[in-house]
């Protein structure tokens, strides 16, 4: 186990937890920046300086796009289960990823990368699948692809310079895509992901729906009530 890689993996996982937990979009952007910077460095051997420079530039550009798109405070709901629970989910997934390094065969990359990848994917799934606002879903989509890249780093041979460049382009594209969606949401004044045309509405749980008797009682004015 490489302590430096473990520290980087912990930092990356912390950034992911911060990004999905906070309600402040600027803090979420900082978390995402930490994830992007950390994910490019969890490799053994470390990437050459030019590749690191390309990844750092891509990370800064991606988050800059996000900052532009999120300017003006598009609201986001944050986590529903609290950051400690998110952190525990990430830690559990990280341990599973670390312990199952190689997924059945010898992995060519560091186990820390696979552990971090599992953790980032685990915290990304909840906002991606159950998020109610576009910012949270966008962050989930971003983290899912970064997590998949980390798992790839743990399984396969180290990335070449050209592969780092392509990964950087993906990060820039993701930042731009989330920023464009956030801008559209801000222009519309709403960030929830429900169909605005009202094709599908959430059905209230049966326990909270009025019974037929209650509906009749509601329609009939009470005797002696004011008109």
């Amino acid at each position, binding site marked *: 186990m490489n302590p430096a890689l473990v520290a980087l993996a912990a930092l990356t996982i912390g950034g992911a937890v911060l990004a999905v937990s906070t309600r402040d979009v600027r803090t979420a952007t900082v978390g995402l920046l930490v994830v992007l910077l950390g994910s490019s460095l969890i490799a053994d051997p470390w990437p050459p300086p030019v590749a690191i420079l390309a990844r750092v530039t891509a990370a800064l550009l991606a988050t800059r796009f996000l900052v532009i798109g999120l300017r003006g405070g598009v609201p986001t709901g944050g986590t529903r289960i609290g950051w400690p629970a998110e952190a525990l989910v990430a830690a559990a997934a990280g341990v599973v990823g670390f312990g199952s390094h190689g997924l059945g065969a010898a992995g060519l990359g560091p186990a820390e990368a696979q552990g971090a990848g599992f953790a980032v994917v685990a915290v990304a799934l909840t906002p991606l699948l159950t998020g109610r606002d576009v910012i949270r879903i966008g962050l989930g989509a971003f983290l899912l692809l970064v997590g998949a890249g980390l*798992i790839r780093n743990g399984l396969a041979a180290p990335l070449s310079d050209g*592969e780092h460049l392509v990964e950087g382009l993906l990060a820039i594209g993701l930042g731009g895509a989330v920023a*464009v969606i956030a801008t559209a949401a801000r*222009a519309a004044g709403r960030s929830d992901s429900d169909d605005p045309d009202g094709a599908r509405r959430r059905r209230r749980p049966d326990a909270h729906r009025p019974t037929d008797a209650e509906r009749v009682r509601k329609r009939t004015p009470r005797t002696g009530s004011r008109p």
Partner: protein
Amino acid sequence: MTVLPFLIVAAAAGVASLVVRGRRGWSTSIAAGGLVLMTATAAAIGPAAAIEIGGVVLAGSEWLRLYAVLGSVVGLLLVAIDVSAIHEPDVPGVIVLGLGAAVLALAVPEPAVAVVAATAGGLAGVLVAAPVGAAARAAFVGIRELRALSVAGALAIVAAAWIARPLGDLTDIPAVFGLAYLAFALAVAIRFGAIPFHLWAARVADAAPGVALPLLMAWGPAAFAAVALTWIDGSIAPLVMPLPTERAVIAAIGIVSVVLGYLAAWIQDDLEHVVGYTIAADAGFVMLGLATLGPEVWEPARTWLLVFVVTRSALAAWAVAIAGGFGTRRLPELAGWARRAPVLAAAFVVIAVAAVGWPGQAAWQARASLATLALPGMVAAVLAIAPLAGLAIHGRILLVGLRPPGPAVREGRGDRPGWPAPLPRRPMVGLGTIERGLERASHAAGGLLDVVWVLPAAARLNRMPIASAAVLALAGLAFVVAGGGLGVPEAARAVPIAIQPGPDLEPAPVGSPGPGLDPGPSGP
């Protein structure tokens, strides 16, 4: 020449077009110029030319060259139709960038890198699905597209990485390979919006500009599918494992997509939904190609990919021209469209013939081969003739067009050409013979200059005929490609110069449950 000049032109023109997006004329001109250059550089790509950049090889092939040339020409025609009919913002730049990313994905022989490039290229589509400054529905559609792209990309990245390494000590070989194969195939299905993964695609078809639909739903996913075919051919097929359950699931997605896609396209009233569902139906045949592990699927699958993207691009272009001319894309409001736009009607018939085809035609044979290779006899026979449903889909639209024109069509622009009213002739005021002669000469010269002046006005007046002519050209291209012209079968047959080496497995002993290893690439 290598593929590098094409990629440089695409990146430069696409970024420049989007940077000046506030000035729509400049943005479109830069993209159109870029597409012209891309056509030239694509035609010059050598099938054996390769270059290594930072450890990543960019290799050309016959099929890649044809994809790039056809993509550039179709993109140029789509931009021309867009400018003539509606002129949506950002679309030309996104077409250029998306096409560049798709060609990059096809040029990289390593699937693990190619899927990342293909996913990054797909993200460009979010810009037109959720345009800046648009309404709430744009964010709703854009986030669904982003979610589909990220899930598909993550599945493909992990699947490609999982078995792209020595796996001699793998504990559970069939399960691992089956899962990776299924994950990659599902990623392709999600990218195409194949049924039952079509909900996001239906929203995009509803909200995105019609002229961007071919890139979002056909050209980009087709590149993704081509990467998947290469990966399966290099990593899964050589192992000679039957993987019956995984193949059955993938084939079932293909069958459902074909049948329900055609059915949905038949009952839809919105033309862009018709385009979207026919793309989903055609994507079903691509899924059947992924469900076959033998090398014999190589040629029909890659033939079909080219045929279907060009044919559906032509149909999407026709729908855009109709919407631009008559201000609606709802079929009930388009009664009489064929009477008012006979050139578009002719183009529509050509598109229908190219899309449905006939036995012996390259497209028909490719579809039939894909069905026969992936499915048992009777089901394959039924699915091979399923595209005849296209007759009902296209016939219904054409019948509506032959009715007496409705209000929207009467008030819309037809595609008969017109000419701006000429300027009034200036009166002769000269007195003597020489004076009048000079005056006549100056009037004649002025008349010539008036013609030059009138040309932009004529172009403005004849937007619909120009769009119709471009659609007709695109329909003709689709007909030629569907018929096997332009060297499509030869390009589909050709093997790329570099193929993913695949997992390094020891050959299994005879009679053991482990995989065998067929040395060398399985492509023909």
